[in-house]
């Protein structure tokens, strides 16, 4: 299979293969949409095309973007995760409260938060695999469990006065005149890491294979159960990182956080060209999808358009993205 995919070297053969590649790479459309949106807003707002503003947009999408990395993994296996925002909220409030009350040192609080989030992911994965239950139902249940635990544990109180390690990712460094948060950098590194893991490792190939056809994957010797649990656990761990990003961005532990982030992360994944039916899509597409949402929100705000129109446009784009996915699937078949 690898042999046929290797891009042809001779330049005369490159033309048709490029056209085909454009049609079949699900990330091209989203990237074009993102660039077009950027061009549009550059013409319509003096403040849009600045380094500071782009740094801001990345900050604003880093939490949902990071959640969407986990969501991408799960959707690639033809699953779905409705619980990620709630898991993140619980991880965030856990880290914040443990650290602020001095129950454990801040770094231990962070580690515990990451582990608990990974644990939620593992629980999702085990229920999906062992019982087995549909991911939609498992994660719908877990959404409520994590939401309730967040409110019970926090007693609905926002946690303030966090020790420095919890907000370190919200600190900035400079590229030229632009201040970029460490959290933004971490988010981009995570995307690159998962692009590598999904694209270059056997594990990544197994994830795609599982999403394409669990039966075929099993017949080729992939331990699909173990793989599924691994994917959900990894996703959970990534939600833990999102929790830390959230805490560092807002500077508080917020029990109300993340209530729409499950759907927002699915939106980012779908806008990025990943198929909801599994087995097709790129994690970099998800970054583009998250940026599309962030660019529209920021650009429309700079133009003075009320935020409800951002929701309207996001809705239209999602339907468009799924339509493109469906049509291109039909073409492949």
């Amino acid at each position, binding site marked *: 299979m690898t042999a046929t995919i290797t891009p042809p070297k001779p330049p005369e053969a490159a033309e048709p293969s490029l056209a085909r590649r454009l049609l079949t790479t699900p990330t091209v459309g989203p990237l074009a949409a993102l660039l077009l949106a950027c061009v549009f807003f550059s013409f319509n707002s*003096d*403040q849009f095309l600045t380094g500071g503003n782009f740094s801001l947009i990345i900050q604003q999408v880093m939490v949902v973007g990071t959640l969407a990395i986990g969501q991408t993994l799960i959707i690639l296996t033809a699953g779905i995760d409705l619980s990620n925002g709630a898991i993140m909220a619980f991880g965030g409030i856990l880290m914040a409260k443990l650290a602020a009350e001095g129950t454990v040192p801040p770094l231990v609080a962070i580690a515990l938060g990451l582990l608990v989030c990974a644990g939620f992911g593992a629980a999702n994965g085990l229920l999906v695999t062992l019982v087995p239950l549909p991911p939609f139902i498992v994660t719908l249940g877990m959404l409520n469990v994590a939401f309730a635990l967040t409110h019970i544990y926090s007693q609905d109180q926002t946690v303030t006065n966090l020790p420095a390690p919890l907000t370190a990712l919200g600190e900035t460094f400079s*590229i030229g005149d632009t201040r970029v948060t460490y959290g933004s950098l971490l988010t981009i590194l995570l995307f690159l890491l998962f692009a590598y893991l999904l*694209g270059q490792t056997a594990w990544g190939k197994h994830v*795609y294979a599982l999403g394409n056809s669990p039966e075929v994957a099993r017949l080729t010797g992939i331990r699909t159960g173990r793989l599924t649990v691994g994917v959900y656990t990894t996703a959970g761990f990534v939600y833990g990182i999102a929790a830390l990003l959230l805490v560092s961005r807002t500077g508080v532990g*917020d029990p109300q956080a993340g209530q729409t982030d499950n759907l927002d992360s699915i939106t980012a994944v779908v806008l990025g060209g990943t198929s909801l039916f599994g087995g097709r899509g790129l994690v970099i597409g998800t970054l583009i999808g998250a940026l599309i949402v962030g660019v529209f929100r920021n650009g429309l705000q*700079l133009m003075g358009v009320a935020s409800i129109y951002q929701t309207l446009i996001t809705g239209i784009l999602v339907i468009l993205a799924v339509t493109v996915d469906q049509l291109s699937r039909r073409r492949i078949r």
Partner: protein
Amino acid sequence: MSRSTRAAGALSACAIVATIALAGCGGGGDNAGQADAIKVGLITKTETNPFFVKMKIGAEAAAKADGAELMTAAGKFDGDNASQITAIENMVAAGVKGILITPSDSKAIVPAVQKARSAGVLVIALDSPTEPQEATDALFATDNFKAGELIGQYAKATMAGKPAKIATLDLAPGIAVGQLRHDGFLKGFGIQEGDPSVVCSQDTGGDQSKGQTAMENCLQKAPDINLVYTINEPAALGAYTALKAKGREKDVLIVSVDGGCVGTKAVQSGQIAATSQQYPLKMAEQGVKAVVDYGKSGTKVSGYTDTGVTLITDKPAGGVEAEDTEFGLQNCWG
């Protein structure tokens, strides 16, 4: 898969190059957007609640009159702190002179407010304070404690010594507005928290269907309830529906806070006995004016401005100062 990884690598490389390139040329553009009209930002808790819709209308009218440009944004749900932070950042990037905000989470919004203020933006809290209140330059709001106190006094006078069995349909834990109204009501009625006459307390989130469920449960617990305090009129109407189903709507006194048009009509028709009316339009108008003043003269408002509250009822009692529903309907919101 190697092909798609290569594409991914190329795309991400492009994205990073683009970001850095933009970062490099970023410095020059920062002051380019000082437009002639003063920009005012309004950030509400949600887009859909009539209270905030009215606030937006007031702000739009005031901005038009003062030749200012209004930008608006809102959270996706009540309590959506992240969207409010994002809106503050984007408005500061857009070069607003001042931001008017109804904070969804009084504590969690504070760091973002501080950042905006250190960028030279005047920040005024509307309707509900931040914690601490000094985190914003100023607060334009209803005195929610007084709003509660008024209906408490009214209820005391109307009950005229009859032993009270009270249900309180509250907002949600940890939200200042709800706590203040609740405490004000108790003070106005002349009782302490934990008084045995309060037989049932439930959170409703200010939602009609949750108000109904809460009242049904309260009636299950204590069928002889004869006074109901509600956080707002939707909760009050929910309670009315529950009471009506039990045939109790005539002999139970419902008092509320808000003064929305639907609520004021319910006072007129007698479903709600009295409500404390507040004035979101005024908050927004005064807020816009304060930002425009700051833009023109550089003077910042500070401290707390009470935007007023009026008891609305058609059955005044015991000398508690009140206006009738005709006045209420002329001044209602929503």
